[in-house]
């Protein structure tokens, strides 16, 4: 059992997300940074689908009531166990009564805390992910609060592991995010497309799990910014009338009526999710085939990222 002593500004239970519910208007949810999420599960010997915590800008403080193992990946939040510094991106053993704290993020936005066995909350529509606006999944469909208790599923012994140095991202670097043009690239002027792929876009504080709001050179429409509403894919760069992009993330609305100039590759979504308000990013257009190649590369990078600790 995990007892939450301080929850942090927005800590939620997530697994890999809900499938098949978007036709009913329910988004997939799941981690914004899938890369870091999968790694935290692998560090503690869980399947990728196990439920873990996503923390935003600052982590929680919690007490464990039984021995086990946990790991922290993603944004660089200082981790302490009973006040002693502990390393991120590696397996950490815990004994009953240990108190863990994650401080404010020094870089990045979202951290993931994985527990050996995975968090035990009820499956809702096939997933343990919290969808805050829809009030489903996770713990009663909401972010964690002080005093909450979370059960952990049973697990076997966990050999200590770590993520190799090369696989740990540097969130302070201005990312270049790859995107496939469309579905409505033809609704923009050449000037508008040049702005998108030549300019720098700053992340605004109004960003959340639904979408990241950006500000930069205006992305000019050729004819009107409204379309007949259609489905919205993960990473869609939606451009309303003001010409400023909104990147739609895991808690996005399933359909919408604004033009979408391009769609960020799934293997680069985490770069958007870890960019802090005030940080900027750039876009690069690539064809679909290249995006698929990047995804396979990212899968391989995940496979190679975790090593057993040599004692």
């Amino acid at each position, binding site marked *: 059992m995990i007892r939450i002593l301080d929850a942090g500004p927005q800590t939620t239970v997530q697994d890999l997300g809900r499938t098949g519910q978007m*036709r*009913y*208007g329910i988004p997939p949810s799941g981690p914004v940074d899938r890369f870091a999420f999968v790694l935290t599960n692998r560090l503690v010997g869980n399947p990728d689908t196990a439920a873990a915590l996503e923390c935003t800008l600052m982590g929680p403080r919690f007490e464990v009531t039984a021995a086990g193992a946990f790991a922290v990946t993603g944004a660089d939040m200082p981790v302490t166990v009973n006040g002693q510094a502990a390393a991120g991106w590696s397996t950490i053993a815990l004994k009953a009564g240990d108190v863990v704290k994650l401080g404010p993020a020094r870089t990045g936005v979202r951290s993931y805390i994985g527990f050996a066995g995975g968090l035990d909350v009820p499956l809702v529509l096939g997933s343990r992910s919290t969808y805050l606006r*829809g009030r489903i999944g996770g713990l009663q469909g909401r972010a964690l609060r002080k005093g909450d208790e979370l059960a952990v599923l049973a697990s076997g012994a966990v050999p200590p592991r770590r993520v190799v140095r090369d696989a740990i991202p540097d969130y302070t670097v201005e990312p270049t995010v790859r*995107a496939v043009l469309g579905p409505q690239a033809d609704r923009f002027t050449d000037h508008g497309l040049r702005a998108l792929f030549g300019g720098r876009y700053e992340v605004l504080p109004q960003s959340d799990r639904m979408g990241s709001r950006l500000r930069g050179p205006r992305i000019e429409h050729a004819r009107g910014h409204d379309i*007949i509403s259609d*489905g919205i894919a*993960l990473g869609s760069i939606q451009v309303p009338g003001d010409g400023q992009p909104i990147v739609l993330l895991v808690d996005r609305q399933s*359909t919408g009526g604004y033009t979408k100039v391009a769609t960020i590759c799934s293997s680069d979504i985490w770069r958007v999710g870890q960019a802090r308000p005030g940080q900027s990013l750039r876009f690069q257009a690539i064809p679909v085939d290249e995006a698929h190649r990047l995804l396979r590369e990212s899968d391989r990078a995940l496979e190679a990222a975790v090593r057993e600790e040599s004692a």
Partner: protein
Amino acid sequence: MRFLPAGDLAVCVELGEAISVEVNTRVRALEFLIQQKGLTGVVETVPAYSSLLVYYDPRAIGYEPLCAGIAELVPQATTAVLPPPRVVELPCCYDDSELGFDLVGAAKRLELSTDDVVRLHAGAEYLVYFIGFTPGLPYMTGMPERITIPRLDTPRTKTPPGSVGIGGIQCCIYSVESPGGFWILGRTPVPLYDPSASEPTLLRPGDRVRFRRIDRSEYDSIGAAVAARSYQPVIS
């Protein structure tokens, strides 16, 4: 027909560029065929007015073969393949200014009596084109022409869930409290989205919806039954 890439995990299959029952029926028929045939690599589908967003796993299928597989199904995508639609009856209280707070204004704008507006609205059968925007919110058509009305000049910031609204040629029912630009004629006590239910959303794409005019006392008693979990929606 056009295939528009939507990143590396989805493709938008556009079957037309208009809001029409004919095009939307083909969209839903295509979705049905894709699900029925279990097309390789397809993860999930999202119908809209005139397009179908198909999510796929690029580890299981490439973009070109996926589009080719879908294109093969398009000629068969007609009403004939769809199962008979469900008909969902939704009780709606129009005759209470607290619930149907735009009814008087809409009637005035349409130069009709409030009773005529209600009779016309409740007398029609609506088709759910698709569900979107918020969980369980239906985009519907089937409005009698006489009550088509421009959307509100200034959208309101909060519309209570269950509010039944009209705007343009469309009718919608708000599923959760949200902003909106529709004229609210009444409210249904039946939740379209109930996070605590095992199936949180009531309506599906392709459903037919009929409104049954109820008075405030019936609205309240159905509301109480919903709260007590003893209400069963009327679906045939």
